[in-house]
């Protein structure tokens, strides 16, 4: 393997890792405020990709302007999910029930997508999807750059919202202690609803970039959710910074493995890393020990 191919793999890994970081940040935000793992996050990314596909292929709206429609749509889906299902869970057996409920939602979305689009693979196309720019000896496809740029901007926005605004303080308060947050006058239910909406809304962006860089069908959600789960656990559940770090690390490692060994086994890296890390540090790379009790 040449040094250039290796470097190219690392650069690709960082660029795609940014998009995975965004999707994983949404997943970990929902976990943080709701104590719920959204198994449907993967298929929601695929749903976001199909929304972009529908807009660009049939209505002639470009991928980037289309986000102005798909992001609010996915936000509304997240709000509905919280309002109709997550809120109704009782405190006991919450862990099991929440995972089953989001799994059921995932099956429902997958079924609807299969009924509409069938099992054929599709991919998003646009003028900037297939072109690349040559920088310092690397070919960088525009879509990777756009995806990475969007992901960084949105993650920065998410960070700003969580740590610099009043709403963010409310989110963090409800995350730490629901009862105390209630007592000081935070509307915990509304905070949770909006947080889940935001956590799901990021899948619209993730879906657009995923759909432009990979061929997908309604089944693609399983592959995605398994990677995203590996990332959030590696990063430490509920830690947004950890999710970002773990996403970039894992994508770089798996891209390097794909180049150095074989693309078939690259996904194995995710799970192998997960098993090794958990055997040594059950709380994840960046998590606090209290997470272990979870």
């Amino acid at each position, binding site marked *: 393997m040449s040094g250039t191919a290796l470097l190219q793999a690392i650069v690709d890994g960082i660029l795609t890792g940014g998009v995975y970081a965004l999707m994983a940040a949404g997943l970990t935000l929902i*976990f943080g405020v709701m*104590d719920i*793992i959204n*198994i449907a996050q993967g298929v929601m990314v695929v749903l976001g990709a199909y929304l972009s596909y529908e807009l660009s292929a049939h209505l002639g709206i470009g991928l980037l302007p289309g986000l102005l429609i798909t992001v609010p749509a996915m936000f509304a889906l997240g709000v509905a999910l919280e309002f109709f*299902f997550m809120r*109704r869970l*009782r405190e*006991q*057996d919450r*862990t*099991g*029930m929440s*995972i*089953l*409920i989001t*799994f*059921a*939602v*995932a*099956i*429902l979305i*997958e*079924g*609807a*997508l*299969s*009924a*509409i689009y069938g*099992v054929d693979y599709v991919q998003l196309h646009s003028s900037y999807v297939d072109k690349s720019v040559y920088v310092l000896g690397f070919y960088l496809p525009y879509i990777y750059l756009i995806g990475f740029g969007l992901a960084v901007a949105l993650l920065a926005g998410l960070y700003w919202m969580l740590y610099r605004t009043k709403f963010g303080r409310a989110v963090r308060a409800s995350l730490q202690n629901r009862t105390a947050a209630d007592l000081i006058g935070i509307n915990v239910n509304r905070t949770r609803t909006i947080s889940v909406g935001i956590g799901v809304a990021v899948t619209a962006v993730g879906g657009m970039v995923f759909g432009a860089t990979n061929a997908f069908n309604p089944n693609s959600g*399983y592959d995605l959710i*398994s990677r995203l*789960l*590996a990332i959030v*656990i590696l990063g430490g*559940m509920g830690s947004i910074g950890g999710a970002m770090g773990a996403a970039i690390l894992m994508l770089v490692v798996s891209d390097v493995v794909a180049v150095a060994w074989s693309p*078939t*086994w690259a*996904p*194995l890296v*995710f*799970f*192998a890393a*997960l*098993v090794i890390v*958990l*055997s040594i540090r*059950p709380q994840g790379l960046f998590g606090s020990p209290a*997470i*272990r*009790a*979870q």
Partner: protein
Amino acid sequence: MSVGVRRASAAGALALALVVFGLFPVVFTDPMATSIAVFTLIFMVATTAWNIFSGYSGYLALGHAVFFGSGGYTVALAARDWHVKGGWAVFALLPVGGLVAAAIAIPVGLVALRVRRHTFVVITIAIFFVFQLAAFNLGFTGGTSGILLPFAPFAAANYNQPFYYVALVILVLTVVLSWAVRRSRFGLQLLAIRDDEDRARGLGVKTWRVKLIAFVISAFPVGMVGGLYFYFLGQVFPQFAFDPLFDVSLALMGFLGGIGTLTGPLLGALVLESMQQYLTQSFSGTGTYLIAYGVMFLAVILLLPRGVVPTLAELLANRRARAAGGPDTTRDATVRGGVAGVAR
């Protein structure tokens, strides 16, 4: 009702169930009915076995397809490499499938049981995907096309019957196993872990060992019926052997009937699997089927979160208490942990 009467009526119900299940393929000879019955029995075994770990310990495992698929591949490979002829001899390989599944459960459990709650669930899902990936890509699994099992030379008219009775025997043994675990000191330790793991450990339960043993026990029957299932289908493929829907099906069936009870998983699997098989054999198109499944799933969780058996048992206990003139205290008393004690 006195204990003696209750025990006698339970024995009567058991005998009746055995007669009904024993005579089913004799009365209903339609191949569609008997094949639905075979699939249903297989899922009753798998859900009961899953419940031995997940129901009693409270750890929700969503990766039992690992054991199902491993059992299937083991039986297929053993039949091919040992040149086993189709027919009854292949059934003798099923315990080998169970043993391999149980052996795989040891390292899987060693990793997964280091963590609790959400993380445990996610780890079981992740390990499941490792096996799926391996089944698609390793050389000896035959890739996407899988491995053929020997053709069973049973008479066409009664082709399903041998599979049915083998599944029934495995089911009876698995239910006995589940019952024995539940009644034992070991079962009490598992229930203690479900109720409060840290306190159980404080009281001297070797929680880690107990969980691992239960995990391995629960893998064995799933591996056996995995072998049976793919012998019945005639071929083992990765997308059937390692199917994420299998993982959630077991949980759904368990939750519908009532997890942690002996009869709940049996009832849940009986209702859901027969219905599901009937729907798939009557309608085509994966999309509509998945939608129906998702809706049913949500309805069960939202409307009957504790399952049919515990809910019924509680209703019955309430009525009995009211008939005896006592105050209605069962509701509070059974809400936590006690549920399984009432519902048998």
